[in-house]
């Protein structure tokens, strides 16, 4: 920001560097970053539906701590791109109440670690209202928040808490890993009549990829097979998807062909493609950034073990997870705390050699 501070007026400004997909044919592919794709989804949803608004800390003139909301404040004004005080519990609660009263709020929590400040409204209120009220009301809200390590931000700004949310009935949990999925899944999340926890990996924000113009949705609850191979199945989430795909290329050079599966929606989970793939390959390598203990991949391992795929296994199920330790600061320590491409290659090779 410039030294001269301006108070938000609530009045829309002229678009600046707008990444709207207007001017392109629907479906036409443009090269966007993940952050731009998220912004485009928010902008298109707000342009199409007056009920949609976004609130959060420093999302207005500042454009968001990670620059995701960017110019939305200038396009839609301070009423609908609403800066808030540092009050995570208050603003998530305000989103819950606004959703109950007919709006479609999107709330940005600056770091997913800060959801801890808002947990009552997420877990005890948003997740349960539809069920607990016997279906009288819905909470159609989206909570967007960046997660993950890799930025040297240490223990209170680097966690991967997706398993916490996936453990709570009534929350949908989405973790997009490409720009196109970020846009399409966010549009579908805004449409959804339920509370959606939308987890954006902060290392992906600058990743580029083709994104279709227009309002094409990517359905929640559809697991994506991102690479096909007959020797083993790698299931990965978040930034581990791209690391697993990179590892799969190295493995292919060694003559090992890996399938890579990205659930995209962690809850409710579409496990059929995972179980089917593991039945075919007989080997499962489950990769997550979060600490392994009671993590999301423990659920995947259990579902494989409870399914007929168990009888097709040629090797033990293998999990590759972050250390069961808080995220450290020093670069070498941080890198050592979460799976890297080399580690995925090593684990996959060992799994194939074991059988």
């Amino acid at each position: 920001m410039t030294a001269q501070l301006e108070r938000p007026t609530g009045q829309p400004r002229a678009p600046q560097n707008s990444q709207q997909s207007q001017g392109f044919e629907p479906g036409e592919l443009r090269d966007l970053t993940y952050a731009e794709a998220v912004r485009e989804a928010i902008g298109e949803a707000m342009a199409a539906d007056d009920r949609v608004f976004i609130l959060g800390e420093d999302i207005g003139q500042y454009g968001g701590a990670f620059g995701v909301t960017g110019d939305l404040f200038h396009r839609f004004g301070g009423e609908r791109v609403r800066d808030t005080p540092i009050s995570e519990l208050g603003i998530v609660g305000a989103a819950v109440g606004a959703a109950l009263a007919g709006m479609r709020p999107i709330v940005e929590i600056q770091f997913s670690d800060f959801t801890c400040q808002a947990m009552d409204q997420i877990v005890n209120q948003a997740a349960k209202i539809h069920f607990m009220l016997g279906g009288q009301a819905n909470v159609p809200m989206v909570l967007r928040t960046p997660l993950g390590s890799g930025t040297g931000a240490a223990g209170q700004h680097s966690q991967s808490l997706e398993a916490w949310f996936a453990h709570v009935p009534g929350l949908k949990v989405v973790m997009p890993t490409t720009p196109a999925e970020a846009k399409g899944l966010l549009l579908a999340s805004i449409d959804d009549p339920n509370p959606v926890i939308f987890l954006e990996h902060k290392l992906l924000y600058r990743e580029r990829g083709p994104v279709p113009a227009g309002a094409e949705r990517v359905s929640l609850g559809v697991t994506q097979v991102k690479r096909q191979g007959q020797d083993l199945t790698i299931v990965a989430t978040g930034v581990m998807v791209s690391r697993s795909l990179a590892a799969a290329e190295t493995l292919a050079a060694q003559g090992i062909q890996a399938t890579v599966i990205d659930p995209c929606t962690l809850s409710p989970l579409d496990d059929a493609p995972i179980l089917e793939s593991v039945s075919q390959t007989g080997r499962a390598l489950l990769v997550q950034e979060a600490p392994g203990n009671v993590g999301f991949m423990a659920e995947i391992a259990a579902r494989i073990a409870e399914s007929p795929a168990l009888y097709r296994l040629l090797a033990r199920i293998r999990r590759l997870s972050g250390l069961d330790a808080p995220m450290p600061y020093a670069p070498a320590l941080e890198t050592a705390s979460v799976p890297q491409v080399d580690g995925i290659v090593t684990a996959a090779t060992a799994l194939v050699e074991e059988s």
Partner: protein
Amino acid sequence: MTDSRHIDQPDADAEPPRQAAANGTGQPAGTTAPSADPEVARTALALMWRTRRFEEAVDDLFARGLMHGTMHLSIGQEASATGACLALRPDDAITSTHRGHGHCIAKGASLERMMAELLAKDTGYCRGRGGSMHIADVATGNLGANGIVAGGIPIAVGAALAYQLQGLDRVVVCFFGDGAANEGAFHEALNLAAIWSLPVIFLCENNKYGMSFSTERAFAVPHIADRASGYGMPGVTVDGNSVDDVFAAVTTAVERARAGGGPTLVEAETYRWKGHSKSDKNVYRTRDEIAEWRERDPILAFELQAREAGSLTDDDVQAVRDEARAAIRDAVQAANAAPDSEPGHLMDSVFAEVTA
């Protein structure tokens, strides 16, 4: 999908609150004290007796082992719920608390559906999924009781934000207790409402105890309403056992909120006659203290006021009492005859259905 922009009239078995006619006597301009208007006095008395008899029936059903779970009774606090809701329009909203039967009834809930919920029936407000602590009636603007102390305060702020964004002149009355005023949610929510001038009336029912912890021990300020100045909003402490006083304070706050003037904190001083919940042995207060407050029965006080004002005769009062007793008896009978909640559809109820 519930669209709360279309709020229906309250159910027929609770007389809808109405604005009183102009004839001010210490009341906000253009309003009459409820006790001074025959029709409003009758409505207020009916709401309070229905609340009292409903909760006595619930207490009795629990004591006889005919009701499951837990519940929190507001006996002795009926005036604050009634006085506040009388100041509202049918399309205004409330959020409520774990001690919320009176709020529900005052906002127009069906006694039969409330009783059915407590008796674990499929015809209950929450189809047996919520129980006493989660009764909501979204159709009458009751966005829900809440099992979490202060849980409803940020939600009330959000509903008020929605009304402001929608350009509606609806207001939200946010009920909470003295205990909630020491939760972080109270601080964050009051500040948001103040900085955005949201149409919320924060109605603190100070019943002197957060479970066993007295307000003397829990607060270093004499009145909870004193905290309002810290948020830049008006704060007022009133006799929570007086329907007229609560109505007057909330009416002033509602007028201010509807005109875009922002929130108000109203503290209604009252007292819970019964224990916090089933487990309460009342070891933290004296019999004398309870007896002293029972002398200040808000319902009997209102009957006396309305009779002295010439609004209600002795026969009127007796008729309201008889009607309340009959309405609760009918509600219990109807609820008992209703089908039990069934576990068959539980998993279909976790998420709202996605429509194309």
